[in-house]
């Protein structure tokens, strides 16, 4: 017999061996990728937190009675209480309902921009990566130009040109966000188009769009999906940062960033913690949860992990 050092791995192996001998282990039906996702504890936690925050924002009217816009100058700057869970702000508005309603806009901007940018980037990247030629060259150069600008500068520039509004912000995010998505898809397609099943489809004379969008794209979706989650997180942070600076969504519409805007004032930071701490934590938790989900998605596509 072999001398075995006691280690967790060895014990796990012994367990697997025993189960296999007893015939307990069978080939698992169902999607292996889903199984690995759910095995990843961190990703599950992320998913739960994400759902809680998103659903709370979506169903905000059912969860809070206070109108987030309602000004009540007599009740301003109250500390958190059972009536106002996060207290009230400088104009007496209930912070908790502002956070919940603000979430709607922030998540809309973040997720919405990411999805639109993905749609455009993947759409162009598929065709360009597969076909090459001048379409690819043009898109490549355009994306390089856009990606070369630091986002803040670009936003400032565009805000001064088109003005400040929710739609404009989404427009700007999409403009700066489609580039990386396009390049990622293009890279995937450059390698996938050499696969033999693609050549077989060409040997039948199938059209380029059918080959690209119907046959190759499902195989490229893995990294794209991961990238969408990470881009969403990035946009949420970007919106928060920009609105905090006053450059993002106009101040009359509540967003997480706008709520944070008041924290520019040192006195607020020192004395009225409920105005900025809860919002900040919600943003952090949300972004972290999205990152965990993204990690889980990436790991579930990785064949070398135990799964």
């Amino acid at each position, binding site marked *: 017999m*072999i*001398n075995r050092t006691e280690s967790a791995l060895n014990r796990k*192996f012994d367990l*697997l*061996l025993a*189960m296999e001998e007893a015939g307990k282990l069978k*080939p698992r039906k169902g999607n292996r990728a889903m199984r690995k996702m759910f095995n990843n504890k961190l990703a599950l936690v992320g998913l739960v937190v994400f759902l809680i925050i998103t659903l709370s924002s979506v169903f905000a009217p059912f969860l809070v009675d206070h109108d987030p816009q309602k000004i009540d100058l007599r009740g301003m700057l109250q500390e958190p209480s059972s009536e106002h869970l996060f207290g009230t702000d400088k104009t007496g508005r209930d912070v908790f309902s502002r956070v919940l309603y603000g979430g709607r806009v922030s998540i809309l901007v973040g997720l919405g921009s990411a999805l639109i940018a993905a749609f455009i980037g993947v759409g162009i990247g598929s065709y360009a990566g597969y076909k090459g030629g001048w379409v690819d060259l043009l898109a490549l150069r355009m994306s390089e130009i856009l990606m070369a600008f630091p986002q803040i500068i670009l936003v400032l520039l565009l805000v001064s040109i088109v003005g400040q509004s929710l739609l404009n912000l989404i427009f700007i995010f999409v403009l700066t966000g489609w580039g990386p998505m396009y390049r990622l898809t293009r890279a995937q397609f450059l390698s996938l188009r050499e696969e033999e099943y693609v050549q077989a489809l060409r040997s039948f004379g199938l059209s380029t769009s059918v080959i690209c969008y119907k046959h190759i794209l499902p195989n490229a979706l893995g990294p794209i999906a991961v990238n969408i989650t990470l881009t969403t997180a990035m946009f949420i942070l970007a919106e928060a940062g920009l609105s905090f600076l006053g450059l993002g969504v106009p101040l009359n519409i509540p967003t997480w960033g706008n709520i944070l805007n008041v924290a520019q004032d040192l006195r607020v930071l020192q004395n009225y913690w409920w105005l900025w701490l809860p919002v900040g934590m919600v943003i952090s938790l949300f972004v972290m949860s999205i990152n965990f989900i993204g990690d889980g998605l990436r790991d579930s596509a990785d064949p070398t992990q*135990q799964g």
Partner: protein
Amino acid sequence: MVDDIALSVRDLKTYLYTNNRCNKAINGVSFNVLKGKTLCIVGESGCGKSITALSIMQLLPDLSRIEDGGITYFSEKGPMRLDQLPRKGVEIRKIRGAEIAMIFQDPMTALNPVFTVGYQIAESLRQHSVLNDKEIKLKVIDLLHTMGIPMPEVRMNEFPHQFSGGMRQRVMIAIAMSCNPKVLIADEPTTALDVTTQAQIFTLMDKLKQEHKTAIMLITHDMGVVAELADNVAVMYMGNIVEAGTVEDVLRRPKHPYTRALLASIPILGRGRQQNIKAIRGSTPDSYDRPKGCSFAPRCDYATQACDEMPDEIYISATHSVRCSQLEAIS
């Protein structure tokens, strides 16, 4: 003679634990590798021949282990149990490269593209020998020359991508032979090469064997290679050696149904279009779902009830062994 044995493997069992399941990749395998002789391990994909080599070198993937059995290396200092050495320990690293060397299948990826060829050969020497830099350089040139690479002084400073496939494999062999190992394990060394290059590599390996009396363990799926190079043969199927013996025993007088079926299914050059090629029916079973008893039974024309038990190894001559319970029926 016991003196002739360089490496001895007894009842080796290696199990792989990926995908949260247990794959009994090698299920009780025994063989000897003799000095100055070539042992060919033949089998198709999935039979476990590569895992055997990795088990000997303690290079198994993380999610696997040697369950049982012993691997004994007969070094100058006496026999050493390789399976009991810790995988990442100092002792096994001293043995790898210096006493037991391995060459891999794909020469394109086995060499590091950012270091020169001379540097990579020298690395092995720096690690295992006490030569100084000047002596190492001379040895590298000498090795390249022995391997048949023209202008070795110039070529040792070139990078792998500047060499062709056959040359790269020769460089691999040079690295492997640099410290004069007692045992050389070659895992399908010519599968990725052209036939004419293959011929060159085989001539080279034969020459090395004669000169250095290296014990060679050659893993292949090509029966032609076995006929050309092997002194002894072990035929593997699904983790077991089903037949073993000298090359005359196994190729001229195959007894196991799998060996016979395998030999009958390959077109042999020179026999023309009239030759009778018979495919083996069915296909290799899933590694996780191995048949009880003899793994070949579902595809075997001679299978009976008795084959539900794993047959013992039967010696039909001093050198020739078969793992089959239906030997009378076959003869």
